[in-house]
């Protein structure tokens, strides 16, 4: 009979086990159900059923549908667990276990700590920087209702508007101009001003101080009201009502009167600028560095001494930008009748105040505009580093915690559910991320001032006083903690109790290995991408630095001479006798920002072009730049040169030659009419005609981001006025040239500030942002490599420790050290190949987009990607090999004797 072989205990045990596959039926509950089953079984036996029948009936009676019971029980378990559940109760336990685990694997956790700290510092720096760059002018009240007015002329957009009669516009004309803007429908208030960049000498009794960034306005009330500049000392009304008064900014007052300026009763004192006297009316707070405006002194004057002004207006809150622009355009006849008549005028432009810095790039901006693209680059690179640190953490903790399977098994037996296990891992990740806090703070205190001066920004240095910083840091830590704890907690908590005791998952589990490999592949991909990006960005920068600009940029000094021709000649004579100075000239400077273009047509044709730049150079200054020109004979023999002539550049010559099918050499002698839209009322002459006197090669006057357009270079013997003197010198006097030139300058212009620049520096400054991003990408790549390699070393170190027995066996069986190292490295080569395939197209796309912003650029050489991949492979395999060597060197017997 089958009854004989029926063993109720075995059957019940089997039944109990079958219940355990349901998540919410734990061993204890199964035991309880089994005790009920036994009672029923006994009853059925007494009723005369056979063992099998009694068991079958009892089973049915006890639980008909285990799935439904499971559902019901899981609801019970979740009840009251809503947010915290038993979390608060178990929290101290989580911390205790977490802390013990940190202590147990000190080396690996230290690595996690270091890499998380680095990642977080990079992320925080990036966030602070991006936050700074996007906060421009936000501090001004109603910044969304304030607009800067500009104009479109020819095909260029200007950040300023010219006056009716340019420089000669009277104060009345200027007033009519701004009042017409103020009276435009939708405009509440408007002001205009100009900021003089170059230094002027301010005189306080006997003392003279060169002062840059002087702002002149004849709408003082609107200027103070629209921007709301706070006055620390003095009365607003005194300034508004009295022309020839001025306001210092706080730091300028300090520069003039020392730290105790506030106790010196500045209001009412007199300051002289050039020959004019001004009364101090008050002191303003400094303009924050995250403003596109920058000034040190504000002067109230009836007339602005410039050809145009910067115009800002405030509009009613409900008025849209488009309707204001339409109204202003309609009102052009009153604002500026000359512009209204001009066929070159293309309407006014409006830039909202808080968008100027990042979204506007017009002619004559006050500060170089910010580059959104670089914010993205910075954000991406630091996210990469952060991702690397998170994946490091994930990887290491999967590997380390794989040996904690027994612990998890025990927890599950004692009733922990999956959520409890996950919480343990989250808590451990959070402990590590919070342990980083002091290190993060120390690093930031060290780095922020350096970062500020390097990037020329002003991220607040005592950041810890800002509660938003803490909110950012703490929430970042929670996010990082959760992200890094996510995978370990899901992966390690999902296993069923029955599988937990079977093996060490670090060695056996297929899924663990796959995810680990995926993460390493991901890291390799990031490294190859970042490395090739860095190489390519720096290649382009080197290309820019080394590209032949068409002129000599080394050993040329520019001096702001700003004088009549006689003074310039006197200055020149002072320097002529100095040995080592090889040329002195006057004229336009190279290495500058684009300025206004001009319209022109070839006489005898109808087509008008609007894309030419005018350049002015005297013969010596053309000569000292070493530009290739068709009039070299005049440069060699100045006595034979005509008083003046006009050269056109290669691009202009080609354009004209192609458009009108005239052989290039036949262009010499032809007439070009500049500004053909202008007609002299008296003579009836159209535009400003000139004869083409020769050619020069194309030269890059502006940055290499700008394509070379046609240029007309007026070369002359002498002029009425000299703005800029250019001095070429021999390298042998590099150290003394500045002093020599300054002495000469002081002799001819004793009362003026000596303003100078070196051409090579001017050219470099055009790529200021690119240089910064270039160096920054090198630093960040280095950090990224460091983090990734640290992670790889730790991971390999841990895995090789687990494989000590395997290594021992291999050695005993005769494997060579090299063979074992090769084996360990082999695993990574496949991963690297996959990473290469993924990261190359993405990086290629990104770099090509960046390069397309340069008119002159390198080709993306695919070799760079290979170099990046080889570099990544080399660095990682050195790391892996070194770590493996450490284990290989130990005695194989020791490894085998160990009870793992």
């Amino acid at each position, binding site marked *: 009979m089958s009854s004989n072989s029926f063993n109720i205990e075995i059957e019940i045990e089997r039944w109990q086990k079958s219940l355990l596959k349901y998540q919410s039926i734990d061993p204890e509950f199964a*035991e309880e159900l089994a*005790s009920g089953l036994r009672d029923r079984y006994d009853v059925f036996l007494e009723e005369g059923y056979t063992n099998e029948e009694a068991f079958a009936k009892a089973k049915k009676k006890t639980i008909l549908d285990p799935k439904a019971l499971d559902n019901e*029980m899981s609801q019970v378990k979740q009840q009251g667990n809503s947010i915290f559940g038993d979390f608060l109760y178990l929290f101290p336990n989580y911390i205790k276990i977490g802390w013990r685990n940190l202590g147990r694997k000190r080396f690996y956790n230290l690595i996690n700590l270091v890499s998380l700290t680095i990642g977080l510092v990079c992320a925080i720096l990036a966030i602070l920087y991006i936050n700074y760059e996007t906060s421009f002018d936000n501090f001004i009240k109603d910044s969304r209702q304030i607009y800067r007015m500009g104009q479109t002329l020819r095909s260029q957009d200007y950040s300023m508007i010219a006056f009716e009669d340019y420089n000669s516009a009277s104060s009345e004309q200027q007033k009519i101009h701004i009042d017409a803007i103020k009276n435009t429908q939708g405009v509440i208030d408007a002001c205009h001003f100009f900021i003089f960049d170059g230094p002027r000498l301010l005189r306080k009794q006997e003392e003279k101080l060169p002062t840059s960034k002087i702002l002149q306005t004849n709408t003082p009330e609107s200027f103070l009201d629209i921007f709301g500049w706070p006055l620390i000392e003095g009365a607003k009304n005194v300034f508004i009502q009295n022309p020839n008064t001025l306001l210092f900014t706080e730091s300028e007052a300090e520069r003039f009167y020392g730290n105790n300026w506030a106790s010196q009763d500045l209001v009412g004192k007199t300051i002289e600028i050039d020959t004019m006297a001004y009364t101090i009316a008050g002191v303003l707070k400094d303009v924050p560095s995250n403003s596109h405006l920058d000034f040190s002194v504000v002067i109230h004057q009836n007339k602005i001494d410039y050809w145009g002004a910067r115009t800002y207006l405030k509009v009613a809150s409900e008025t849209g930008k488009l309707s204001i622009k339409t109204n202003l355009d309609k009102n052009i006849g009153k604002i500026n009748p000359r512009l209204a008549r001009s066929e070159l005028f293309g309407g006014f432009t409006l830039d909202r105040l808080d968008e100027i810095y990042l979204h506007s790039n017009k002619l004559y901006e006050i500060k170089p505009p910010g580059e959104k693209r670089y914010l993205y680059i910075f954000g991406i690179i630091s996210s990469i580093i952060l991702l690397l640190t998170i994946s490091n953490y994930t990887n290491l903790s999967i590997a380390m915690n794989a040996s904690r399977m027994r612990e998890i098994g025990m927890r599950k037996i004692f009733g922990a559910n999956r959520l409890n296990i996950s919480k343990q891992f989250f808590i451990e990740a959070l402990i590590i991320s919070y342990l980083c806090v002091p290190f993060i703070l120390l690093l930031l205190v060290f780095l922020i001032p350096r970062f500020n001066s390097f990037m020329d920004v002003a991220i607040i240095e005592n950041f810890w006083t800002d509660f938003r910083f803490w909110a950012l840091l703490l929430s970042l830590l929670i996010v990082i903690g959760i992200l890094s704890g996510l995978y370990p907690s899901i992966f390690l908590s999902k296993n069923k109790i029955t599988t937990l005791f079977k093996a060490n998952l670090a060695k056996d589990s297929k899924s663990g290995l796959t995810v680990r490999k995926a993460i390493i592949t991901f890291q390799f991909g990031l490294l190859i991408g970042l490395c090739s990006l860095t190489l390519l960005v720096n290649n382009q920068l080197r290309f820019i630095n080394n590209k032949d600009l068409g002129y000599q940029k080394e050993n040329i000094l520019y001096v702001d001479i700003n004088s009549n021709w006689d003074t310039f000649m006197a200055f020149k004579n002072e320097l002529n006798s100095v040995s080592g100075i090889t040329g002195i000239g006057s004229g336009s400077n190279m290495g500058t920002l684009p300025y206004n273009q001009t319209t022109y047509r070839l006489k005898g044709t109808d087509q008008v072009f609007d894309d030419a730049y005018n350049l002015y150079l005297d013969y010596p200054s053309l000569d000292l730049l070493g530009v290739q020109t068709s009039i070299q004979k005049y440069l060699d023999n100045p006595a034979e040169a005509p008083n003046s002539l006009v050269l056109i550049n290669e691009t202009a010559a080609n354009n004209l030659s192609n458009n009108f099918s005239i052989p290039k050499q036949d262009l010499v002698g032809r007439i070009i009419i500049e500004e053909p839209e202008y007609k002299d009322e008296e003579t009836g002459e159209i535009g400003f005609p000139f004869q083409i006197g020769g050619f020069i090669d194309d030269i890059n006057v502006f940055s290499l981001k700008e394509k070379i357009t046609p240029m007309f270079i007026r070369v002359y013997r002498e002029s009425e006025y000299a703005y800029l003197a250019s001095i070429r010198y021999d390298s042998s006097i590099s150290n003394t040239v500045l002093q020599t030139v300054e002495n000469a300058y002081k002799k001819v212009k004793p009362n003026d500030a000596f303003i100078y620049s070196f051409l090579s520096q001017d050219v470099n400054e055009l790529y200021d942002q690119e240089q910064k991003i270039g160096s920054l990408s090198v630093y960040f790549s280095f950090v990224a490599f460091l983090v990734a390699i640290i992670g790889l070393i730790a991971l390999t170190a841990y895995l090789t420790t687990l494989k000590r027995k395997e290594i021992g066996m291999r050695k005993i069986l005769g494997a060579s050290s090299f063979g074992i190292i090769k084996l360990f490295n082999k695993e990574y080569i496949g991963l690297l190949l996959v990473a290469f395939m993924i990261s190359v197209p993405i990086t290629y796309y990104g770099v090509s987009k960046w390069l397309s912003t340069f008119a002159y650029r390198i080709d993306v050489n695919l070799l760079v990607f290979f170099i990046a991949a080889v570099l990544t492979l080399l660095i990682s395999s050195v790391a892996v090999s070194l770590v493996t060597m450490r284990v290989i060197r130990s005695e194989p017997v020791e490894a085998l004797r160990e009870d793992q």
Partner: protein
Amino acid sequence: MATKALVAASTKPMVLSILAYGENYGYNIIQQVESMSDGELQWTDAMLYPVLKRMEKEKLISSRWVKTEAGRKRKYYKITETGKAKLVEEKSQWLNVNAIFQSLWSDDDEISFSEIQTV
């Protein structure tokens, strides 16, 4: 047979009442209910155990494992002080309901019935 709603509403007070007489275990509670209701109330394990667990969470009852003389392990449930207070509350509610039904359904109490009609 009692309706599902009635079973759901009465299980908790019934368990508390049974446990008020002393410690008891799941199978026995089911048997007692069945016999006291003359087979009218047939509780199942799948219904009772989730209720017991829930009540344990609410600290109305507590449990412990006991090994019987026969060597069997049983989990015994015991009413707690909170459970006793809850029982008093439940009891008064059920008695109230009971009193209403009694007065509504008793034949010699016409006055109260007409009172209801006039309201």
